């Protein structure tokens, strides 16, 4: 991913919510006033956004010390920070300023200012104020309303001079008490939003991005004619945004010749364009490491293709650029394309730097479009990751652009299939097992396996397959396509499942499905308040063909089970022939996002699935 101002800061905001993990009403924000003022700047920065953020905290129950943090970077300066405790300056106040590092980003210019705010007794008050300046209104993309503490009242003022053309777009206001007002003072419009009684947003694992959850304004900075200057067009239209991106692309300075040699070497002897693109894509996945720099303009401008090729690392932009250049080098139509992952709530109808956070390469092959995201290290050619499926994508097209939507893959792209052929031997099950993984289920597993040390690979794989059950004994393990991400990842092994059967008198009880996929996926609705984002749409199939021993017959066969919901389906069945029992269980997760309101219904379905799992087969002699 690459940094487009807002999206990056959203993650910081979300992280700061971690402070509210134990969110209660001990510390609250009684009132807050935030003012964002567009103002004329200097020659280098003709328009700036001056920001004053003041929050007044109250200790309601017992003395405490809380952490306070504010983020800034090269484009957004932090000019001043001050703190008052009970109306007096805090003694020995020494805020710490540091680089802020976040997972997955090698280096960024993000910085954090943090300090502890003490409340010496119940009733103590603290006032924190920050002064910030965004040096370019392009980077000022959003205003979030909630805080890591319960917020009694916050007023947000956006002061827009008439020479500035800005649109404020509201998101996620539903469910919050937010009043809005516009008044005019001189040649300025003052937009005032007042939010009252807003709870802290607690982070919950696997939840969608903040822009989909928290009430906020998206700031669409369109145009400015500052008093002493000429007209500046920011992102008045999507074409403006594209032109800005394109201006950066034109500055890249790719050296086609040095990339061409490599592209030709990698595609030598291959016939057909698709074979060639596959080879190039696989090579990039395997050989280019993802390392992201988010430093100033480097957060937006792709690295030169020859540099990425030489260094064998790059971020999404660098990888996309190298892919596009390699495609061009062999005469194919490779292009750069911008998009926001599913973390982001917006589309290109609202031109802004907050809209996208990712770049990939697109291969335009006559009437077909292939989306090549080399940051997805173990996904197959033409397989599409959940995080970009269905997302609007801005594709370069010379002076113009193409706007498309990435197709939505069906869950079968990510099928995982396990098939067992078993016989009964005393209380043990014996036989052969074949398993395969496709798409993102394959990618998930290969990520785990490739991060294992070579000498421990088999052990890691066995531990995964046995899931800690020492009776599940694997031998003769064979692995296929560990390196070929375009093929299904497959394994085969011989299984001795000791004591899988409980024999009582003339009866044998047997659990056919020890995987029990999704059995623990119900949610405690008293805790889970946010939608649940699965990593990808799943399709999990588990089948067993069991020989019925001579002289044995089926005494009890669990009933069929099927749920067909618009967002998922689950089914399981046992079939009996003269000599075999066939078991098949299939789960299809059609949507990767489970909205909060669907959780009770989902829990009910998981309950039924568990009921099915908890029904066992009985054979008798």
């Amino acid at each position, binding site marked *: 991913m690459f940094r487009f101002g807002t999206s990056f800061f959203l993650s910081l905001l979300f992280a700061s919510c971690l402070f509210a993990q134990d969110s209660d009403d001990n510390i609250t924000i009684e009132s807050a006033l935030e003012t964002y003022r567009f103002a004329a700047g200097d020659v280098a920065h003709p328009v700036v956004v001056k920001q004053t953020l003041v929050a007044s905290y109250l200790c309601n*129950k*017992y003395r405490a010390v809380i952490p306070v943090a504010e983020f800034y970077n090269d484009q957004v300066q932090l000019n001043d920070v001050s703190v008052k405790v009970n109306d007096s300056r805090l003694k020995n106040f020494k805020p710490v300023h540091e680089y802020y590092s976040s997972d997955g980003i090698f280096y960024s210019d993000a910085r954090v200012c943090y300090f502890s705010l003490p409340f010496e*007794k119940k009733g103590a008050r603290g006032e924190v104020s920050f002064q910030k300046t965004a040096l370019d209104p392009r980077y000022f993309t959003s205003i979030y309303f909630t805080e890591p503490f319960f917020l009694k009242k916050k007023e947000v003022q956006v002061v827009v001079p008439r020479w500035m053309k800005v649109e404020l777009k509201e998101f996620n206001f539903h469910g919050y008490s937010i009043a809005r007002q516009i008044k005019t003072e001189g040649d300025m419009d003052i937009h005032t939003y007042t939010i009252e009684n807003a709870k802290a947003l607690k982070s919950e694992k696997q939840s969608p991005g903040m822009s989909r959850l928290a009430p906020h304004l998206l700031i669409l900075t369109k145009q400015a004619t500052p008093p002493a200057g000429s007209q500046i067009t920011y992102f008045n239209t999507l074409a403006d945004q594209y032109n800005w991106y394109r201006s950066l692309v034109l500055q890249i300075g790719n050296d086609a010749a040095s990339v061409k040699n490599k592209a030709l070497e990698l595609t030598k002897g291959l016939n057909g364009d698709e074979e060639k693109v596959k080879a190039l894509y696989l090579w990039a996945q395997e*050989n280019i490491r993802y390392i992201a720099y988010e430093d100033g303009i480097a957060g937006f401008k792709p690295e030169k293709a020859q540099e990425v090729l030489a260094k064998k690392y790059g971020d999404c932009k660098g990888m996309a650029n190298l892919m596009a250049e390699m495609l061009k080098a062999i005469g194919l139509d490779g292009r750069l394309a911008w998009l926001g992952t599913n973390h982001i709530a917006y589309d290109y109808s609202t031109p802004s730097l907050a809209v996208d956070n990712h770049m990939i390469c697109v291969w335009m092959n006559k009437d077909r479009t292939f989306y090549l995201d080399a940051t997805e290290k173990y996904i197959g050619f033409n397989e599409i990751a959940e995080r970009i499926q269905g997302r609007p994508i801005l594709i370069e097209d010379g002076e113009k652009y193409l706007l498309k939507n990435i197709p939505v893959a069906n869950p079968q792209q990510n099928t995982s299939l396990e098939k067992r052929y078993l016989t009964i031997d005393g209380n043990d099950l014996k036989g052969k097992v074949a398993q395969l993984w496709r798409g993102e289920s394959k990618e998930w597993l290969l990520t785990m396996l*490739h991060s294992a040390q*070579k000498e*421990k690979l088999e052990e890691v794989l066995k531990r995964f397959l046995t899931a800690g059950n*020492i009776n599940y004994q694997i031998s003769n393990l064979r692995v296929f396509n560990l390196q070929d991400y375009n093929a299904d990842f497959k394994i085969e092994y011989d299984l001795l499942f000791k004591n899988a059967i409980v024999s009582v008198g003339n009866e044998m*009880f047997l659990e056919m499905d020890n995987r029990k996929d999704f059995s623990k996926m119900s949610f405690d609705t008293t805790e889970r308040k946010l939608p649940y984002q699965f990593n990808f749409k799943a399709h999990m199939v588990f089948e067993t063909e069991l020989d019925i021993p001579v002289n044995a017959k089926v005494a009890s066969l669990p009933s069929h089970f099927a749920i067909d919901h618009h967002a998922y389906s689950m089914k399981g069945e046992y079939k009996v022939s003269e000599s075999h029992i066939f078991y098949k269980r299939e789960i299809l997760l059609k949507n990767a996002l489970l909205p909060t309101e669907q959780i009770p219904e989902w829990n009910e379905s998981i309950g039924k699935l568990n009921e099915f799992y908890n029904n*066992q087969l009985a054979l008798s002699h």
Partner: protein
Amino acid sequence: MFNAVMMIRYAPAFLLFCLCATIQTAIAQTDADKYHEAAESLRKEIWGWDRPEFTRRAVPVEYAKYSKVVLARRMDVSADSKKKIAFRALSLAAYRELALMEVLRESVKLNDQSAVSEYSEISYTQLERKGGFLMDRTTVVYLGIKVIKPNGEVREINADDIVLTKDQKKKKEAKIAVPDLQAGDIVDYFIAKQTNMSQLEAIPPYLFLFYDEVPVMHCSMHFEVGKKYAVEYRSYNGAPEFKTSKGEDNDNVLDIVKENIPAVEESSLWTAPFRQLPLVRLNILLGNKGILASRLNARKPGELYKNQESEEYLEDKLRRIANRRSMTRLVFDMGKTSGEYLKQVRKNRNKMSTDSLARELFYIFRFDTFLDQTTAKDIRKLVEMSALELDESLVTFFLGEFLKAEEVDNYMVYATLNKGPRMKEILSSDDLNSIIMVRGGVASPFYGFGSIFTNPSYLPYYFEGANGALIVNTRGPRETNINKFEKSSVKIPVSKSHENGRIEQMEASLSSDPSLLEIKRKSVLRGHYKSDEQQRLILFEDYYNAERKYFNDPKTLIEKLSDGRKTKKFAEELESAFAEARTKNKESFLEEARSFFSEEIKEIKNYKVDNMGVRHTNPDLVYSSEIKMDGLVKKAGSSYIIDIGKLQGGQLSIEGDQRKRKLDVYAPFPRSLEYDIRFAIPQGYAVEGLDALNKRVENAAGSFICEATNTGQSIILKVRKSYNHAFEPVANWENMLAFIDAAKEWSNSRIVLKKNG
């Protein structure tokens, strides 16, 4: 309760203080140009080492199976050595500064992606300045990286490609991404750390491992130490010995070379590297032969000390006590509750046995130090007791001094950790941990402090079985002459497995919704098993109130604080925090149940701590709860199959490489698990499959036993698992596996409830 009062005496120890303060230090030059210039010159020197192991490219075929192979690894250290004066010129070699240069160079063949990832990014602290009254230290780190491609092409990485992730005056942290790194490449890199510091500061000790999880084809170390310094060293467990010689200007030179070290194939489970694996330790110490030498137990400048006697390090430790006594005096300032009780104890002391007196004093000390709080900056931290982490040795020392002040004679006991070096092989006074030993009683005399819940006569597990532990009578609090300290040795006892036990009493039955299992559970935790759950489950408020009753204080903490004008506010706030903690206690019990069973818990109620286990008269932690679990009841026709083995909770599973073992077993302590499970047979059903639950694996190392009986109304399972010893010779490993596997396998046990008729 204890305050250290500084006593200004014009004793030599204080003189030392003054001397240090007069030393002027300068700040090393740090501007970018000089840094680069120094880095370049260093690279030239290190890349130019005439050491053939770093030009080696071939790796034996049998090593191809490893993720990486270390072709060469070398540590090169020079401390104030003439020969390395060139490095010294890189900095402002200030008056009386020590120039310490440490270079670690490695050449590593990368065989897979995991190795590539490991070496693809390097983070380090490029500059660090630490200043203070006694020291002024600047550390600068230089880096060199070369990548050698399979065709022999060598690419040196441009060190200017670093990014700073911390850029402050006193600290700079940097990162570099290594470009063009692929499986099959060799990475040859070094990290050179140059430290300029006051000569009175200690150089951190060195520890080198002569084992690795991958093969190391050549491993060497080289030290050049100026004659102002003494060097002490020791090789452990078959590691090679240093060869010593004299260098320029009579510097001491020490070298070790070891070739072809095979990979250690087994896991680190229950190992004690200081006792089992080849390693080398070395300390560079300030020599002193002046008037302070004996007071400091200083080593002689220029001297090499191989395999020093452990008494030397004990002496270091004792001199520290003597010096502390000469500068400070402890004053015990009791709170009201404990102060009043102490008066009563003093009044009755003649009627009390030494053991009773020591215990009473222990409880007073514990209450006054940890519980009797009259204020806090952050109440939540106080209530959650998370702020009360102990420096065990220090608290124990203060306890000892307190007992002495109350005329309960006690000695210091010093021993190494049961996973640390053997007593006779220590190389630092920090290897010695201490507890106290109360004199004149009949109960177990050892008093340690593991947590704020610790009882009297607590012997920390890591002390158990210590051979050659040393007892020192440090005499009265004013005795500063260590020659008057009397020394002897003692064998520390070991606990029995039943003394460190978890006992689970469970009454299980099918719920009205038969897919759920209902369990009434009572847990009893003993010995070393207790402290984690005490920390998790006991509320500060309950602990305080239980204890203050022992001290005949009729008032709760809240009542008491409410009485005080200054503490009234605090009382109000504490009351709110206590109420909140009580609400959150449910989550703690839920977490405990989840972690014990390794299963999801559907519901929990009637949870409570029945006995906190904080008194020697009633030492077990006992708690109970009622829970409901799903997923353990299966149905087949009209029969139910119950996963009864899962009630045993999560069991240790030894898999893969962990099963192969050549090393003796160093587990933390002997321990036992006992489960008494009564499962109510539903009306109209009979139990089958019970025989398969009976299991008996019993050997010298431990046991796993299950006896199952059917009373008609219920089935009763008595399950026992015991690890008999903390230490087992590897010859007993198969025995250990036998009962560990049996317990793991038993957790898959099921019973069948068949409908009658």
